[in-house]
């Protein structure tokens, strides 16, 4: 198995932390943001995992889920719910917030863009009252949400008093050795900010979030 990652990309932080944590063996290739690894996708998409069957996984969350399952840890319905929430609700808000803060220097606006998702996370953690999102042990949901939020929450000015649970949870996950080494691999020290910027500049500009009524099937 071969895992392709690029520097500065927060999604790569997720998958590298999952590799470390699960101990699943795979070769890691560091490539450029523009490298087209997945043959059938028009746009370069990283990270990507080339499976033994020849198929590619191009969704960072599916890659993390696969690594956890390969090490005998299947995601619970609760973990699934957080993964879906991360992809559909958190990611659009994050794309906007990162664009505002890292590329335009508008930190207050960036914090506003994340208000709703962060309060959802705070409520979820408070209601469950477990150290991790889906229970007593770290799960794929913790790794995925932590990795996604890393660029904003590692900057302590985003943390407000109303986010006490989020703060505690984020620290708990961040202290795992697997997470620390994933951060080092993708965001290498003092160049971290410019690496994130370089990554963001390659992403399509986030359009204002819109949710239209969908046929509910």
């Amino acid at each position: 198995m071969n895992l392709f990652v690029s520097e500065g990309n927060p999604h790569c932080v997720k998958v590298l932390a999952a590799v470390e944590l699960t101990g699943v063996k795979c070769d890691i290739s560091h490539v450029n943001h523009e490298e087209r690894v997945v043959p059938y996708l028009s746009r370069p998409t990283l990270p990507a995992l080339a499976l033994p069957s020849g198929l590619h996984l191009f969704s960072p969350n599916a890659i993390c889920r696969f690594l956890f399952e390969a090490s005998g840890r299947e995601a619970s319905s609760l973990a699934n719910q957080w993964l879906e929430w991360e992809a559909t609700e958190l990611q659009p808000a994050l794309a906007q917030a990162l664009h505002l803060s890292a590329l335009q220097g508008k930190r207050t606006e960036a914090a506003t863009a994340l208000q709703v998702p962060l309060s959802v996370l705070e409520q979820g953690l408070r209601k469950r009252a477990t150290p991790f999102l889906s229970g007593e042990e770290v799960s794929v949901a913790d790794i995925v949400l932590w990795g996604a939020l890393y660029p904003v929450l590692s900057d302590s000015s985003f943390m407000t008093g109303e986010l006490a649970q989020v703060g505690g949870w984020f620290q708990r996950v961040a202290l795992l050795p697997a997470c620390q080494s994933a951060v080092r691999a993708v965001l290498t020290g003092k160049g971290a900010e410019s690496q994130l910027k370089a990554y963001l500049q390659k992403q399509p500009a986030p359009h204002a979030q819109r949710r239209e009524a969908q046929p509910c099937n």
Partner: protein
Amino acid sequence: MVFWFPAPPQVPVLQINNGPSLSGLVTIATHLVQEAKRPELLGDSAEQRAVVQQWLEYRVTKLDNCPKEEIKTILKDLNQYLEDKVYLAGNNFTLADTLMYYGIHHIMVDLTVQEKEKWANVSRWFDHVQHYPGVRHHLPPVVVSRNRLYTGGHH
């Protein structure tokens, strides 16, 4: 039962008798398949299960609310992906086919005959799925010609 997870509008919520509620289309569909003891619909190996989850995620992140100008890219990518596959996860029908079918139906309805031929692999997959027992329900069938009407178009 208190909804501990505040679901945004338009996100489906499943209230379970003896537990907390679940929200999100993929989460609920996956849960119901497990409850129905049909694990094969989620894939029959760790690899296949990851592929199924990937396309389920694709449905709710890329396909839903996709801007008009993105539709062509989605069709192009899917067409390339499906070139050597019967279903999204390979040779077996899975939950990913059902949810992608429902998500893409409104796009397929609007395609011209020429466009359906241009995206021949998507059309073939779509036709398989809409004829799969129990999938189509109330949705109108989309006519997919099995014989090429136009020639010379490049793919």
